[in-house]
Protein backbone atom coordinates (compact mmCIF):
# COMPACT_ATOMS: atom_id res chain seq x y z
CA UNK A 1 0.00 0.00 0.00
CA UNK A 2 1.40 3.36 -0.96
CA UNK A 3 2.09 6.11 1.54
CA UNK A 4 -0.33 8.82 2.38
CA UNK A 5 0.82 12.24 1.45
CA UNK A 6 0.95 15.49 3.38
CA UNK A 7 0.74 18.32 0.89
CA UNK A 8 2.36 21.66 1.61
CA UNK A 9 -0.46 24.14 2.01
CA UNK A 10 0.08 27.68 0.73
CA UNK A 11 -2.36 30.05 2.34
CA UNK A 12 -2.82 33.73 1.65
CA UNK A 13 -5.63 33.90 -0.84
CA UNK A 14 -9.04 34.74 0.58
CA UNK A 15 -11.20 33.41 -2.26
CA UNK A 16 -11.10 30.42 -4.61
CA UNK A 17 -7.92 29.81 -6.60
CA UNK A 18 -9.00 29.31 -10.21
CA UNK A 19 -5.77 29.09 -12.22
CA UNK A 20 -2.11 28.52 -11.67
CA UNK A 21 1.00 28.32 -13.83
CA UNK A 22 4.67 27.47 -13.41
CA UNK A 23 7.56 29.26 -15.08
CA UNK A 24 10.41 27.38 -16.70
CA UNK A 25 13.51 26.50 -14.71
CA UNK A 26 15.57 29.66 -14.15
CA UNK A 27 18.94 30.20 -12.45
CA UNK A 28 16.90 31.11 -9.35
CA UNK A 29 14.75 28.00 -9.40
CA UNK A 30 11.23 27.93 -10.78
CA UNK A 31 8.19 29.98 -9.86
CA UNK A 32 4.46 29.62 -9.53
CA UNK A 33 1.73 32.19 -10.10
CA UNK A 34 -1.82 31.74 -8.82
CA UNK A 35 -4.97 33.46 -10.08
CA UNK A 36 -7.63 34.08 -7.47
CA UNK A 37 -11.12 35.49 -7.27
CA UNK A 38 -9.85 37.92 -4.64
CA UNK A 39 -8.22 39.89 -7.48
CA UNK A 40 -4.71 39.55 -6.05
CA UNK A 41 -2.57 37.06 -7.99
CA UNK A 42 0.48 35.86 -6.10
CA UNK A 43 3.96 34.79 -7.08
CA UNK A 44 5.57 31.96 -5.12
CA UNK A 45 8.83 30.08 -5.18
CA UNK A 46 7.91 26.93 -7.07
CA UNK A 47 9.67 24.25 -5.05
CA UNK A 48 8.78 25.52 -1.57
CA UNK A 49 5.56 27.46 -2.02
CA UNK A 50 7.10 30.44 -0.22
CA UNK A 51 5.28 33.65 -1.05
CA UNK A 52 7.39 36.14 -2.99
CA UNK A 53 4.90 38.88 -3.80
CA UNK A 54 1.36 39.87 -4.71
CA UNK A 55 0.51 41.68 -7.95
CA UNK A 56 -1.75 44.53 -6.91
CA UNK A 57 -3.86 46.47 -9.37
CA UNK A 58 -6.75 44.41 -10.69
CA UNK A 59 -10.22 45.55 -9.67
CA UNK A 60 -11.96 42.24 -10.07
CA UNK A 61 -11.53 38.48 -9.87
CA UNK A 62 -8.44 37.23 -11.69
CA UNK A 63 -9.38 34.29 -13.89
CA UNK A 64 -6.09 33.48 -15.58
CA UNK A 65 -2.41 33.93 -14.81
CA UNK A 66 0.82 32.97 -16.52
CA UNK A 67 4.57 33.49 -16.30
CA UNK A 68 7.09 33.64 -19.09
CA UNK A 69 9.80 30.96 -19.16
CA UNK A 70 12.39 33.10 -17.35
CA UNK A 71 9.82 34.24 -14.74
CA UNK A 72 10.71 37.84 -15.50
CA UNK A 73 7.22 38.69 -16.73
CA UNK A 74 3.77 37.76 -15.56
CA UNK A 75 0.40 38.24 -17.22
CA UNK A 76 -3.04 38.09 -15.68
CA UNK A 77 -6.61 38.05 -17.04
CA UNK A 78 -9.40 39.50 -14.93
CA UNK A 79 -13.09 40.22 -14.56
CA UNK A 80 -12.35 43.95 -14.66
CA UNK A 81 -12.18 43.58 -18.47
CA UNK A 82 -8.39 43.94 -18.55
CA UNK A 83 -5.36 41.78 -19.04
CA UNK A 84 -2.25 43.08 -17.32
CA UNK A 85 1.43 42.43 -17.89
CA UNK A 86 3.70 42.68 -14.84
CA UNK A 87 7.39 42.75 -14.09
CA UNK A 88 7.68 39.51 -12.12
CA UNK A 89 10.87 40.60 -10.37
CA UNK A 90 9.69 43.96 -8.99
CA UNK A 91 5.95 43.25 -8.96
CA UNK A 92 5.24 46.44 -10.89
CA UNK A 93 2.44 46.65 -13.40
CA UNK A 94 3.92 47.19 -16.85
CA UNK A 95 0.91 47.21 -19.15
CA UNK A 96 -2.89 47.22 -18.97
CA UNK A 97 -4.71 45.90 -22.02
CA UNK A 98 -8.35 46.93 -22.08
CA UNK A 99 -10.91 44.44 -23.38
CA UNK A 100 -14.65 44.60 -23.91
CA UNK A 101 -15.54 41.83 -21.52
CA UNK A 102 -14.13 39.53 -18.84
CA UNK A 103 -10.72 38.19 -19.84
CA UNK A 104 -10.15 34.54 -18.95
CA UNK A 105 -6.84 33.45 -20.45
CA UNK A 106 -3.35 34.87 -21.08
CA UNK A 107 -0.31 33.17 -22.63
CA UNK A 108 3.18 34.41 -23.63
CA UNK A 109 5.08 33.24 -26.70
CA UNK A 110 8.39 31.47 -25.99
CA UNK A 111 10.35 34.70 -26.45
CA UNK A 112 7.81 36.73 -24.43
CA UNK A 113 7.33 39.14 -27.33
CA UNK A 114 3.62 38.48 -27.82
CA UNK A 115 0.70 37.92 -25.48
CA UNK A 116 -2.38 35.90 -26.39
CA UNK A 117 -5.65 36.76 -24.64
CA UNK A 118 -9.11 35.23 -24.72
CA UNK A 119 -12.29 35.74 -22.77
CA UNK A 120 -16.00 36.31 -22.72
CA UNK A 121 -16.08 38.52 -25.80
CA UNK A 122 -15.30 35.36 -27.83
CA UNK A 123 -12.33 36.96 -29.59
CA UNK A 124 -8.73 35.76 -29.44
CA UNK A 125 -6.27 38.64 -29.45
CA UNK A 126 -2.57 38.78 -30.12
CA UNK A 127 -0.71 41.73 -28.58
CA UNK A 128 2.78 42.69 -29.66
CA UNK A 129 4.40 43.62 -26.36
CA UNK A 130 7.06 45.64 -28.18
CA UNK A 131 4.30 47.85 -29.61
CA UNK A 132 1.64 47.83 -26.91
CA UNK A 133 -0.14 50.88 -28.35
CA UNK A 134 -0.79 49.06 -31.61
CA UNK A 135 -4.14 47.37 -32.16
CA UNK A 136 -3.99 43.64 -31.41
CA UNK A 137 -4.52 41.08 -34.13
CA UNK A 138 -7.97 39.55 -33.64
CA UNK A 139 -9.12 36.00 -34.35
CA UNK A 140 -12.87 35.47 -34.42
CA UNK A 141 -14.88 32.32 -34.80
CA UNK A 142 -15.84 31.02 -31.40
CA UNK A 143 -19.52 31.40 -30.64
CA UNK A 144 -19.19 31.38 -26.85
CA UNK A 145 -16.83 32.61 -24.16
CA UNK A 146 -13.25 31.44 -24.55
CA UNK A 147 -11.86 29.57 -21.57
CA UNK A 148 -8.28 29.08 -22.64
CA UNK A 149 -6.08 30.17 -25.53
CA UNK A 150 -2.55 28.78 -25.88
CA UNK A 151 0.34 29.18 -28.31
CA UNK A 152 1.48 25.92 -29.89
CA UNK A 153 3.67 24.48 -32.61
CA UNK A 154 6.53 26.87 -31.91
CA UNK A 155 4.17 29.85 -31.60
CA UNK A 156 3.01 29.47 -35.21
CA UNK A 157 -0.40 28.17 -34.20
CA UNK A 158 -2.99 28.79 -31.48
CA UNK A 159 -5.19 26.34 -29.60
CA UNK A 160 -8.38 27.63 -28.02
CA UNK A 161 -11.12 26.05 -25.92
CA UNK A 162 -14.49 27.73 -25.48
CA UNK A 163 -17.91 27.21 -23.94
CA UNK A 164 -19.23 26.49 -27.44
CA UNK A 165 -17.91 22.95 -26.75
CA UNK A 166 -15.16 23.21 -29.34
CA UNK A 167 -11.40 23.22 -29.28
CA UNK A 168 -9.97 24.97 -32.32
CA UNK A 169 -6.52 25.08 -33.86
CA UNK A 170 -5.75 28.34 -35.66
CA UNK A 171 -2.94 29.46 -37.90
CA UNK A 172 -1.39 32.58 -36.42
CA UNK A 173 -0.68 34.33 -39.71
CA UNK A 174 -3.84 33.59 -41.66
CA UNK A 175 -6.02 33.66 -38.49
CA UNK A 176 -8.00 30.82 -40.06
CA UNK A 177 -9.16 27.63 -38.38
CA UNK A 178 -6.93 24.69 -39.30
CA UNK A 179 -8.79 22.02 -37.37
CA UNK A 180 -11.61 21.75 -34.87
CA UNK A 181 -12.73 19.28 -32.21
CA UNK A 182 -16.34 19.17 -31.02
CA UNK A 183 -17.49 17.73 -27.72
CA UNK A 184 -20.84 16.94 -26.09
CA UNK A 185 -20.05 19.20 -23.20
CA UNK A 186 -17.89 22.17 -22.36
CA UNK A 187 -14.18 21.57 -22.03
CA UNK A 188 -13.15 22.36 -18.44
CA UNK A 189 -9.41 22.73 -19.00
CA UNK A 190 -6.63 22.44 -21.52
CA UNK A 191 -2.87 21.96 -21.13
CA UNK A 192 -0.33 22.01 -23.95
CA UNK A 193 2.97 20.11 -23.68
CA UNK A 194 5.38 21.41 -26.35
CA UNK A 195 7.82 18.56 -25.89
CA UNK A 196 6.05 15.78 -27.70
CA UNK A 197 3.18 18.04 -28.89
CA UNK A 198 0.56 16.65 -26.52
CA UNK A 199 -2.70 18.36 -25.68
CA UNK A 200 -4.47 17.44 -22.43
CA UNK A 201 -8.20 18.23 -22.38
CA UNK A 202 -10.68 17.59 -19.59
CA UNK A 203 -14.46 17.43 -19.86
CA UNK A 204 -16.99 15.75 -17.59
CA UNK A 205 -15.18 12.87 -15.87
CA UNK A 206 -12.82 12.41 -18.81
CA UNK A 207 -9.17 13.30 -19.28
CA UNK A 208 -8.34 13.16 -22.98
CA UNK A 209 -4.95 13.27 -24.70
CA UNK A 210 -4.57 14.54 -28.26
CA UNK A 211 -1.76 15.13 -30.69
CA UNK A 212 -1.49 18.92 -30.66
CA UNK A 213 -0.51 19.19 -34.33
CA UNK A 214 -3.09 16.92 -35.91
CA UNK A 215 -5.71 16.95 -33.14
CA UNK A 216 -5.85 13.17 -33.45
CA UNK A 217 -6.95 11.54 -30.23
CA UNK A 218 -4.25 9.53 -28.44
CA UNK A 219 -6.31 8.16 -25.54
CA UNK A 220 -8.99 8.99 -22.99
CA UNK A 221 -9.19 8.07 -19.33
CA UNK A 222 -12.22 8.30 -17.06
CA UNK A 223 -11.96 9.42 -13.45
CA UNK A 224 -14.32 8.64 -10.55
CA UNK A 225 -15.57 12.23 -10.41
CA UNK A 226 -16.07 15.28 -12.58
CA UNK A 227 -12.62 16.66 -13.43
CA UNK A 228 -11.80 20.37 -13.67
CA UNK A 229 -8.13 20.15 -14.55
CA UNK A 230 -5.38 17.67 -15.37
CA UNK A 231 -1.65 17.77 -16.00
CA UNK A 232 0.75 15.36 -17.70
CA UNK A 233 4.15 14.70 -16.13
CA UNK A 234 7.11 15.97 -18.25
CA UNK A 235 8.35 12.37 -18.66
CA UNK A 236 4.85 11.33 -19.74
CA UNK A 237 4.65 8.47 -17.29
CA UNK A 238 1.93 9.87 -15.02
CA UNK A 239 -0.77 12.44 -15.07
CA UNK A 240 -2.72 14.02 -12.24
CA UNK A 241 -6.26 15.29 -12.17
CA UNK A 242 -8.59 17.01 -9.73
CA UNK A 243 -12.20 18.10 -9.68
CA UNK A 244 -15.50 18.10 -7.87
CA UNK A 245 -14.80 15.52 -5.17
CA UNK A 246 -11.93 17.60 -3.70
CA UNK A 247 -9.39 14.81 -4.35
CA UNK A 248 -6.23 14.69 -6.44
CA UNK A 249 -5.92 11.57 -8.61
CA UNK A 250 -2.70 10.18 -9.99
CA UNK A 251 -2.86 7.87 -13.02
CA UNK A 252 -0.33 5.85 -14.97
CA UNK A 253 -0.32 7.40 -18.46
CA UNK A 254 0.72 4.19 -20.19
CA UNK A 255 -1.73 1.76 -18.57
CA UNK A 256 -4.46 4.34 -17.71
CA UNK A 257 -4.59 2.77 -14.26
CA UNK A 258 -5.58 4.93 -11.28
CA UNK A 259 -2.56 4.73 -8.97
CA UNK A 260 -3.38 7.02 -6.07
CA UNK A 261 -5.90 9.46 -4.78
CA UNK A 262 -5.15 12.11 -2.20
CA UNK A 263 -7.46 14.04 0.05
CA UNK A 264 -6.46 17.42 1.37
CA UNK A 265 -8.50 20.18 -0.17
CA UNK A 266 -11.73 21.34 1.43
CA UNK A 267 -13.34 22.32 -1.83
CA UNK A 268 -13.40 21.38 -5.52
CA UNK A 269 -10.01 21.42 -7.22
CA UNK A 270 -9.98 23.99 -10.03
CA UNK A 271 -6.48 23.67 -11.42
CA UNK A 272 -3.53 21.32 -11.20
CA UNK A 273 -0.11 21.54 -12.84
CA UNK A 274 3.16 19.64 -12.70
CA UNK A 275 6.30 21.64 -11.95
CA UNK A 276 8.77 21.94 -14.83
CA UNK A 277 11.09 19.35 -13.23
CA UNK A 278 8.18 16.99 -12.53
CA UNK A 279 9.12 16.61 -8.85
CA UNK A 280 5.88 18.08 -7.56
CA UNK A 281 2.47 19.22 -8.69
CA UNK A 282 0.43 22.15 -7.45
CA UNK A 283 -3.34 22.27 -7.06
CA UNK A 284 -5.62 25.28 -6.56
CA UNK A 285 -9.03 24.94 -4.97
CA UNK A 286 -12.33 26.56 -4.14
CA UNK A 287 -11.07 26.47 -0.53
CA UNK A 288 -8.68 29.33 -1.32
CA UNK A 289 -5.48 27.35 -0.90
CA UNK A 290 -2.76 26.03 -3.16
CA UNK A 291 -1.28 22.70 -2.21
CA UNK A 292 2.01 21.24 -3.36
CA UNK A 293 2.14 17.45 -3.69
CA UNK A 294 5.18 15.22 -4.17
CA UNK A 295 5.34 13.13 -7.32
CA UNK A 296 7.54 10.55 -5.61
CA UNK A 297 6.24 10.44 -2.06
CA UNK A 298 9.01 9.96 0.42
CA UNK A 299 11.72 11.69 -1.58
CA UNK A 300 13.73 14.51 -0.08
CA UNK A 301 12.90 17.61 -2.11
CA UNK A 302 12.03 21.21 -1.34
CA UNK A 303 10.51 21.31 2.10
CA UNK A 304 9.95 17.56 2.28
CA UNK A 305 12.55 15.45 4.01
CA UNK A 306 12.58 11.69 3.97
CA UNK A 307 13.39 10.43 7.43
CA UNK A 308 14.29 6.87 8.34
CA UNK A 309 12.80 5.73 11.65
CA UNK A 310 16.25 5.56 13.32
CA UNK A 311 16.82 9.24 12.56
CA UNK A 312 13.68 10.34 14.36
CA UNK A 313 15.14 9.64 17.79
CA UNK A 314 18.13 11.92 17.13
CA UNK A 315 18.07 15.57 18.13
CA UNK A 316 16.67 16.71 14.80
CA UNK A 317 14.26 19.30 16.12
CA UNK A 318 13.58 20.92 12.76
CA UNK A 319 10.70 18.66 11.87
CA UNK A 320 7.25 19.98 12.55
CA UNK A 321 5.12 16.98 11.84
CA UNK A 322 5.33 13.65 10.10
CA UNK A 323 3.02 11.49 8.12
CA UNK A 324 3.00 7.85 9.08
CA UNK A 325 1.47 5.41 6.67
CA UNK A 326 -1.76 5.24 8.66
CA UNK A 327 -4.40 7.84 9.51
CA UNK A 328 -4.47 11.04 7.56
CA UNK A 329 -4.01 14.31 9.38
CA UNK A 330 -6.76 16.87 9.17
CA UNK A 331 -5.22 20.33 8.92
Amino acid at each position, binding site marked *: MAMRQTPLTCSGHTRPVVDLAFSGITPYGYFLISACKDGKPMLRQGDTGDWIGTFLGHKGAVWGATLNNEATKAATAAADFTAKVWDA*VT*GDEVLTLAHKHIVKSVNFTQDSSCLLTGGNDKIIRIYDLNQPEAEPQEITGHTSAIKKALWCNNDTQILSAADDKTVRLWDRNSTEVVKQLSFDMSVSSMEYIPDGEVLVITYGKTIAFYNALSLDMIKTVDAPASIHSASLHPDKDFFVAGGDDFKLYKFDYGTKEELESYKGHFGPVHCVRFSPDGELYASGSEDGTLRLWQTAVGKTYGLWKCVLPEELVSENSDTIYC*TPAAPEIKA
Partner: protein
Amino acid sequence: MSTLVTVLRLPRGPDPNGRGFDPNSPRFVALCPTTISASTETGTDSVEIGEEQRARSALRESFLRTLIAMTNKQVQFHMYERVKVEAKFGASDIDVLNFQVSELQTPIGVQKEALLRCQDVISYSFDL
Protein backbone atom coordinates in the same frame (compact mmCIF):
# COMPACT_ATOMS: atom_id res chain seq x y z
CA MET B 1 10.02 -0.63 7.92
CA SER B 2 8.25 2.21 6.22
CA THR B 3 9.96 5.54 5.87
CA LEU B 4 8.25 8.68 7.07
CA VAL B 5 8.04 11.97 5.28
CA THR B 6 8.53 15.03 7.39
CA VAL B 7 8.14 18.64 6.50
CA LEU B 8 10.99 20.99 7.41
CA ARG B 9 8.63 23.94 7.74
CA LEU B 10 5.45 25.23 6.17
CA PRO B 11 5.58 27.49 3.11
CA ARG B 12 5.94 31.14 4.09
CA GLY B 13 2.78 33.13 3.70
CA PRO B 14 2.24 36.70 2.54
CA ASP B 15 3.55 39.62 4.55
CA PRO B 16 0.52 41.57 5.80
CA ASN B 17 2.41 44.85 5.57
CA GLY B 18 3.40 44.99 1.96
CA ARG B 19 3.18 43.42 -1.44
CA GLY B 20 6.51 41.59 -1.30
CA PHE B 21 9.09 41.37 -4.10
CA ASP B 22 11.97 41.84 -1.68
CA PRO B 23 14.53 44.17 -3.27
CA ASN B 24 17.26 42.40 -1.31
CA SER B 25 16.57 38.99 -2.79
CA PRO B 26 19.40 37.64 -4.99
CA ARG B 27 17.12 37.54 -8.02
CA PHE B 28 16.00 41.15 -7.62
CA VAL B 29 19.55 42.38 -7.11
CA ALA B 30 20.82 40.46 -10.14
CA LEU B 31 18.01 41.34 -12.55
CA CYS B 32 17.21 44.91 -11.46
CA PRO B 33 20.52 46.52 -10.59
CA THR B 34 19.12 50.01 -10.84
CA THR B 35 15.48 49.18 -10.12
CA ILE B 36 14.78 51.76 -12.77
CA SER B 37 12.96 50.39 -15.80
CA ALA B 38 13.79 53.45 -17.87
CA SER B 39 17.52 53.14 -17.59
CA THR B 40 18.12 49.45 -18.17
CA GLU B 41 19.02 49.94 -21.81
CA THR B 42 22.52 48.85 -22.67
CA GLY B 43 24.98 51.67 -23.05
CA THR B 44 23.76 53.60 -20.04
CA ASP B 45 26.83 54.26 -17.97
CA SER B 46 27.01 54.43 -14.22
CA VAL B 47 27.29 58.24 -14.17
CA GLU B 48 23.96 58.61 -15.96
CA ILE B 49 22.37 55.99 -13.75
CA GLY B 50 23.70 57.85 -10.69
CA GLU B 51 22.22 61.12 -11.90
CA GLU B 52 18.91 59.50 -12.72
CA GLN B 53 18.83 57.87 -9.30
CA ARG B 54 19.50 61.23 -7.62
CA ALA B 55 16.70 62.84 -9.57
CA ARG B 56 14.35 60.02 -8.70
CA SER B 57 15.25 60.22 -5.03
CA ALA B 58 14.60 63.95 -5.01
CA LEU B 59 11.23 63.51 -6.69
CA ARG B 60 10.26 60.72 -4.34
CA GLU B 61 11.23 62.76 -1.32
CA SER B 62 9.19 65.76 -2.44
CA PHE B 63 6.22 63.50 -3.14
CA LEU B 64 6.42 62.05 0.35
CA ARG B 65 6.70 65.55 1.80
CA THR B 66 3.57 66.62 -0.07
CA LEU B 67 1.71 63.74 1.57
CA ILE B 68 2.84 65.00 4.96
CA ALA B 69 1.91 68.59 4.07
CA MET B 70 -1.54 67.48 2.94
CA THR B 71 -2.46 65.86 6.24
CA ASN B 72 -5.71 67.27 7.64
CA LYS B 73 -6.03 69.74 4.76
CA GLN B 74 -8.90 70.07 2.30
CA VAL B 75 -7.86 68.41 -0.95
CA GLN B 76 -9.67 68.43 -4.31
CA PHE B 77 -9.41 65.15 -6.23
CA HIS B 78 -9.95 64.90 -9.98
CA MET B 79 -10.86 61.34 -10.86
CA TYR B 80 -11.98 59.33 -13.89
CA GLU B 81 -15.52 59.67 -15.25
CA ARG B 82 -15.31 63.45 -14.65
CA VAL B 83 -15.53 62.98 -10.90
CA LYS B 84 -14.41 65.91 -8.75
CA VAL B 85 -14.59 65.44 -5.01
CA GLU B 86 -13.21 67.29 -2.06
CA ALA B 87 -12.22 65.81 1.29
CA LYS B 88 -9.97 66.20 4.27
CA PHE B 89 -6.88 64.12 3.63
CA GLY B 90 -5.90 61.72 6.41
CA ALA B 91 -3.15 59.38 5.22
CA SER B 92 -1.89 57.17 2.46
CA ASP B 93 -1.08 53.45 2.75
CA ILE B 94 2.51 52.28 2.30
CA ASP B 95 2.18 51.36 -1.41
CA VAL B 96 0.13 54.49 -2.24
CA LEU B 97 -2.82 52.37 -3.28
CA ASN B 98 -5.42 54.00 -1.06
CA PHE B 99 -5.89 57.43 0.51
CA GLN B 100 -7.79 57.63 3.75
CA VAL B 101 -10.01 60.72 3.76
CA SER B 102 -12.72 62.25 5.96
CA GLU B 103 -15.81 64.28 5.12
CA LEU B 104 -15.72 63.27 1.48
CA GLN B 105 -18.12 65.54 -0.44
CA THR B 106 -19.77 63.58 -3.18
CA PRO B 107 -22.72 64.41 -5.47
CA ILE B 108 -24.87 62.08 -3.37
CA GLY B 109 -23.86 63.36 0.03
CA VAL B 110 -21.02 63.68 2.46
CA GLN B 111 -19.21 60.46 3.43
CA LYS B 112 -17.79 60.74 6.92
CA GLU B 113 -14.88 58.37 6.34
CA ALA B 114 -13.74 56.91 3.04
CA LEU B 115 -10.89 55.28 1.17
CA LEU B 116 -10.05 56.60 -2.26
CA ARG B 117 -8.46 54.14 -4.66
CA CYS B 118 -5.35 55.91 -5.92
CA GLN B 119 -5.39 54.35 -9.35
CA ASP B 120 -8.76 56.06 -9.90
CA VAL B 121 -7.28 59.50 -9.13
CA ILE B 122 -5.99 61.55 -12.03
CA SER B 123 -4.76 64.53 -10.02
CA TYR B 124 -5.28 66.26 -6.72
CA SER B 125 -4.60 69.73 -5.43
CA PHE B 126 -4.57 71.58 -2.14
CA ASP B 127 -3.55 74.93 -0.71
CA LEU B 128 -0.42 74.99 1.40
